[in-house]
């Protein structure tokens, strides 16, 4: 294929796409040049996925046109887009866990020799693609056994296997840990160095400024502006994205800690494979304070929160919640005590995707008055509660009977926050509250958590984002291999000190005061 480098490899002109009741894209232009990383930036719900899904042939545009290498195209479906050399890695992976990497890669594009699958040829290509682009994957590993980062590499290999030279990556970093993000960026760079062109979707400003050659910002379905990373700043991009001035620093007053509401004493917890992941951990959270648990992911955060919430058995120790022994209580009993829980995994625990917003709002109190009387659900009462909360928590949705899976992640999370915080909890477990969310939603959720603290709730916050921990917490504990290796007052610690402790588990020169 000869490449005229002046003709854009992909050009979107005036594309409009509506869904019933929503204009997802309106008159959107996008120009992708050869060998360029073009960042598509925008808050959740801005229409980024819709735009690239249209480019990928999943939707037909209502108006406008798409041009590939100067020629206008009309894709009847995904296979047309693939034939045109476009590959896409979706926000949610499309892999089959029980198949091996090689089987997944060739799926839909089977290399055969006679009537048989030629897996050997596929394996060789996968290995070759892997070395060429730094995408190391074992062709014979079962996809279900791979980490999220590895699965993403499989998706990329799958696209490259189909000879894609325009790659569309929909929020590829949302699911990655900070370390994996760095690896991922070097893969992306090696891809463009070897002639691929990339549309990279994200809402993380730091990332945009690191990798982009060109930036297009979407807001409310329209192009809010384009920017050049050399002249743009995080602040200018954030303002474009949100449409107003954004405050990066959370405003928060002094805490006024009162009685102990969450008391964990020597608790030990195992993970799903039976490995001791939380090891005789003790901590106390008082009413009116936010206790932040910092740590590299996988050091027992998930097990810690799930065990306190009653969703995972403890193999040792005691938990007291709001003055009651809660060691052996079930999730329902703990909720009824007045302990709320914003779970780490939104899709797995936090919502039932196929349910309406209304049903998700009452997911853990559907059996209480006024939502149910004598075992009969009162849909009117449920809907009106949902309407109140949607209004109060600024959930952007056409209505409360919309399946929650149609909302953006930020809006789904707001529904969860609304459900958990509106019940006036005395204590709350908050796990990764803003993962994958946009600035506007993050700001909103942070303020809600602080407001709850100011009303006197005890907050146990677990987050992989050190910035989040630092800006919200009154006290910070560092979790390392299932133990708290240090507890500090936020004012008396620093990013560097915590970072060192998170990485090594040992205090450097600073004194750690253990509670």
């Amino acid at each position, binding site marked *: 294929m000869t490449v005229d480098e002046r003709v854009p490899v992909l050009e979107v002109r005036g594309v409009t796409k509506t869904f019933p009741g929503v204009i997802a894209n309106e008159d959107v232009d996008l120009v992708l040049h050869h060998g360029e990383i073009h960042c598509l930036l925008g808050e959740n719900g801005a229409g980024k996925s819709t735009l690239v899904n249209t480019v990928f042939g999943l939707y037909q545009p209502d108006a406008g046109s798409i041009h590939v290498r100067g020629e206008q195209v009309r894709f009847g479906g995904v296979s047309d887009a693939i034939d045109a050399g476009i590959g896409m890695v979706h926000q949610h992976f*499309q892999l089959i866990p029980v198949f091996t990497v090689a089987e997944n890669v060739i799926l839909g594009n089977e290399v055969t020799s006679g009537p048989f699958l030629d897996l050997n040829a596929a394996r060789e290509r996968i290995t070759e693609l892997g070395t060429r682009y730094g995408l190391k994957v074992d062709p014979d590993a079962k996809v279900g056994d791979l980490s999220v980062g590895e699965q993403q590499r499989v998706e990329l290999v799958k696209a490259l296997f189909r000879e894609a030279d325009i790659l569309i990556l929909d929020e590829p970093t949302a699911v990655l840990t900070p370390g994996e993000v760095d690896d991922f960026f070097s893969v992306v760079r090696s891809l463009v160095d070897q002639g691929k062109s990339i549309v990279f979707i994200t809402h993380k400003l730091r990332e945009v400024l690191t990798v982009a050659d060109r930036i297009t910002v979407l807001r409310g379905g329209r192009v809010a502006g384009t920017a050049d990373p050399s002249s743009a700043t995080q602040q200018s991009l954030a303002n474009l994205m949100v449409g107003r001035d954004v405050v990066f620093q959370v405003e928060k007053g002094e805490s006024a800690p009162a009685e102990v509401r969450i008391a964990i004493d020597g608790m030990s917890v195992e993970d799903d494979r039976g490995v001791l992941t939380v090891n005789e951990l003790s901590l106390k959270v008082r009413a009116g304070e936010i206790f932040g648990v910092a740590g590299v992911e996988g050091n027992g955060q998930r097990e810690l929160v799930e065990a306190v*919430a009653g969703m995972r058995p403890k193999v040792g120790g005691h938990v007291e919640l709001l003055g009651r022994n809660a060691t052996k209580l079930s999730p329902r009993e703990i909720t009824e005590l007045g302990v709320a829980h914003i779970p780490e995994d939104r*899709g*797995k625990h936090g919502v039932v995707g*196929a349910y309406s917003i209304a049903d998700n709002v009452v997911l853990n109190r559907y059996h209480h008055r006024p939502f149910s009387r004598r075992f009969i659900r009162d849909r009117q009462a449920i809907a009106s509660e949902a309407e109140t909360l949607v209004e109060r928590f600024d959930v952007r949705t056409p209505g409360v009977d919309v399946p929650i899976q149609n909302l953006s992640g930020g809006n789904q999370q707001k529904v969860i926050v609304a459900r958990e915080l509106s019940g006036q909890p005395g204590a709350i477990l908050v796990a990764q509250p803003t993962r994958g969310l946009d600035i506007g939603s993050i700001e909103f959720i942070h303020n809600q958590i602080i407001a709850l603290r100011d009303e006197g709730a005890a907050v146990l916050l677990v987050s992989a984002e050190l910035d989040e921990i630092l800006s919200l917490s009154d006290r910070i504990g560092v979790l390392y291999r299932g133990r708290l290796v240090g507890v500090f007052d936020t004012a008396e610690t620093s990013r560097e000190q915590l970072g060192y402790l998170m990485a090594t588990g040992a205090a450097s020169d600073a004194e750690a005061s253990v509670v």
Partner: protein
Amino acid sequence: MGESDSLQGKIVKAWSVQPVLVPLYAILLSFIVGGVLIAIIGVNPFEAYWALVRGMVGSPDRVAASIARSVPFVGSALALALAFRAGLFNIGAEGQLLVGGILAAWVGTFSFLADAPGLVAIPTVLIAGAFGGLVWGGVPGVLRARTGAHEVISTIMLNSVALFIVRWIVNSRDPVILRDTAASVPRTEQIADGAVLPQLVDSEPNLHFGLFVMIAVAVVLAFVIARTTFGFEVITVGTNPNAARYAGINVNRIIVSSMALSGAFAGVAAASEVSGTNQFFQPGTFAFIGFDGIAIALLARANPVAILPAALLWGSLLAGAPLMQQEADVSIDVVRIIQAMVLLFVAADAIVRYLFRVRDQGGRHIDATNAGWV
């Protein structure tokens, strides 16, 4: 990561596309395939189908017979439907019918029922049947909840266990257990007269009050699923068991209770047959009613109310087939083939959506079986 990963989740998602149209197309398609088959064996398919239709609804008696044939299918289909909503495949209606049926027949012969009024005797027999099914459905539920044993495997096993146990109970002459030794075929004794469901039409088979019993059960189940907290719990467990646990729902309790209730539906259907049709229990009369229930429930997309017309179609076809054989010389088995086709097209309804170009509002195909490169 949540619900869409499970098989049920995918099936339900595919079902959400044109839930009425696709099953109707599946039926149409099956008749077309059946017609081609009939033509191949040298019979005019229109004549054969005309005979079939007259066999189904050609006279008031035939209509009654068609309805009568359909009644037990309602129960066996509901047995699949409720469990399905909880994310479970209850393949055990066959066994649940047998256990419910024999219990109903046994209780029906209790001496205290001999003089009891129908208002006492009939519910007693129906409850006995429901209880038998409840136990036989509850056991795989408990196994699933306690040990993780997959309900498909355990219900299939329990079907065989039930069949051999009831055969022994009914066949054995030494010792005599429940066999009516005076009868020429292996069957239980007649139940008390007061325990016999009121008869509506003296067709072949006869139409009895069990019709209303099964309609009531279906309507109640529809209400339970749509409006009660229990229904909400069942569907939450079925769509996203992790979220259900997080929400404080006792997932194991829901698994056990929905399997047990499912079994009870099959048990009631069996009791209604024992009490309304034969007045005794004979294992052979229940053969395939449980398995056909699976097809009917899937055709009706596990919707309790939709099960009523689906069961009616099923029973009518079986009732009408003999006339087709008599008049057009087309084997009854052709109807069985059509029914198998319906199940096939309903299970693989991507075929139907493709052939009839059925799409969802967003204009994209959704496939349960094929979620490849999209």
